[in-house]
């Protein structure tokens, strides 16, 4: 492996960050410039949204069920098993729903975008598109960014609901909790701030997933090996960034809402 000087490394890092921010800004700015590719946005929304549904259904259900299963043990010790709905509800809506959905979609779609765009780069299809008078940023990047941001919002809602349902199944079937009592406590405990926080996050996460996926795809170099590297980097970078951004959003919104 070739060693690189610290100055060179710093330069490359700054360049990469600059290029990423340029891509992210352009992807949004293109919404206000013609041509707009609505058909491509719908197609991407179908691929990203509907395509991710099975994995979101499975993870949502299992995370909710596991949350209920793990917390029930502790709650039972304090004789507060009835609070299980409350715990699952707050945990899923405020934190686990958005983060798990974000990570799942990152694993599935950031890699997909990086490999698809990366393959197009190394086979000169991106250059061909530019040569044919079409802006790849408008045609390929913006539809993916918009579709991922919008669809992650809805996927998170589905994940939250299924998590609550998974928790309900465990609570009712394993711990004999009353079905109505579970849903009543789950519903009553949620306040506007919880829902707002839970639904704000996927908007950021979706943007991160798509822009990171597209960035690594469009900057892929070095043939099939380069595409493989770009795919891995896209998943790692988007997952790490989701976790970091989540921390800051949570802290920020807690401060804004003077959280309890």
């Amino acid at each position, binding site marked *: 492996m070739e060693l690189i000087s610290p100055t060179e490394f710093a330069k490359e890092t700054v360049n990469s960050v600059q290029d990423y921010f340029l891509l992210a800004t352009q992807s949004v700015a293109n919404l206000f410039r013609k*041509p707009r590719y609505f058909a491509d946005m719908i197609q991407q929304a179908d691929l990203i949204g509907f395509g991710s549904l099975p994995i979101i259904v499975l993870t949502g259900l299992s995370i909710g069920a596991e949350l209920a299963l793990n917390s029930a043990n502790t709650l039972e010790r304090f004789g507060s098993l009835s609070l299980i709905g409350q715990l699952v509800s707050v945990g899923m809506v405020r934190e686990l729903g958005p983060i798990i959905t974000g990570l799942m979609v990152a694993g599935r779609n950031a890699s997909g975008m990086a490999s698809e765009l990366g393959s197009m780069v190394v086979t000169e299809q991106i250059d061909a598109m*530019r*040569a044919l008078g*079409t*802006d790849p940023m408008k045609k390929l990047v913006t539809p993916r960014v918009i579709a991922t941001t919008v669809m992650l919002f809805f996927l998170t809602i589905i994940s939250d609901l299924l998590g609550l349902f998974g928790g309900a199944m465990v609570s009712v079937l394993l711990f004999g909790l009353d079905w109505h009592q579970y849903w009543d406590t789950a519903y009553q405990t949620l306040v506007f701030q919880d829902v707002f926080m839970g639904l704000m996050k996927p908007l950021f996460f979706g943007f991160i997933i798509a822009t990171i996926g597209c960035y690594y795809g469009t900057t892929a170099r070095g043939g099939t090996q380069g595409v493989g590297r770009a795919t891995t980097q896209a998943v790692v970078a988007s997952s790490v960034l989701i976790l970091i951004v989540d921390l800051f959003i949570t802290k920020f919104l807690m401060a804004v809402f003077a959280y309890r």
Partner: protein
Amino acid sequence: MAAPPTAIEQSAPSETGASANVIVFENVSIAFEGKTVLDGISFHLERGETKAILGIAGSGKSTILKLSLGLMRPDDGHIYVLGDDVTQMREDDLFELRRKIGMVFQESALFDSLTVRENVAFRLLEEGHVSEGAIEEPVREALSFVELENTVDKFPSELSGGMRRRVAIARAIITHPEILLYDSPTGGLDPVTSTTIIELIVKQRDVYKTSSLLVTHRIQDTFMMATHYFDRKVNKMLPLPKGARGEVPMTFLILRDGKIIFDGDVNQLVHSKDEYLKEFIS
């Protein structure tokens, strides 16, 4: 009507002056990772002319095409394409200019998720001037030019290498561009398929008289182009009679170590006393 060969002694009628030039390179230099690839090169392509760019691998042949399209920017110098300085243009303005230029990429660069029909019609659909239904006729016309009408519903992966090149040519010519750029159109193909591709390029040159830059390392292909013409009566490429030349001017540009070492016609090339050129064309 066939392009009638003209006697080589007669001077072929050609416009002179800047307006007759569709591409002008002025002292263009570019380097990659500290290695100079093009070192202050200057040349021009006249309207209707076909210029073959030759050189060894890595001599910057394909870079010239990408620079002409504004896909890359030079470190120094100016490039005028259809009167516009592409080195100074914004990317948005370049997209407008690129619509007047067709390019055939080295490995075809067809969109692998689109069918042949969608690939060929890509530019028409993107420009938005025609409906999905109205693209059928120009697509058929472009594909019939390359004799691949029966492949419209196939995907690029279902085609052979030669067929993919032909589809790429159809995609490039569908809007009848003012300039055509060919990047090693016969690279990696067998001799028979190469001849088929060259015949299509000669057909395009002699029928539509589109100004073209053709990059290749296969000198035999360019000699074939210079010594043949397309006869529309018999729909075939035929050799020019001895001592005659085609109606469309064909020139050669040879690169070495980032510099142009030859820019002239086939007659000048074969009579060159330069040892390197002699070896290059032997």
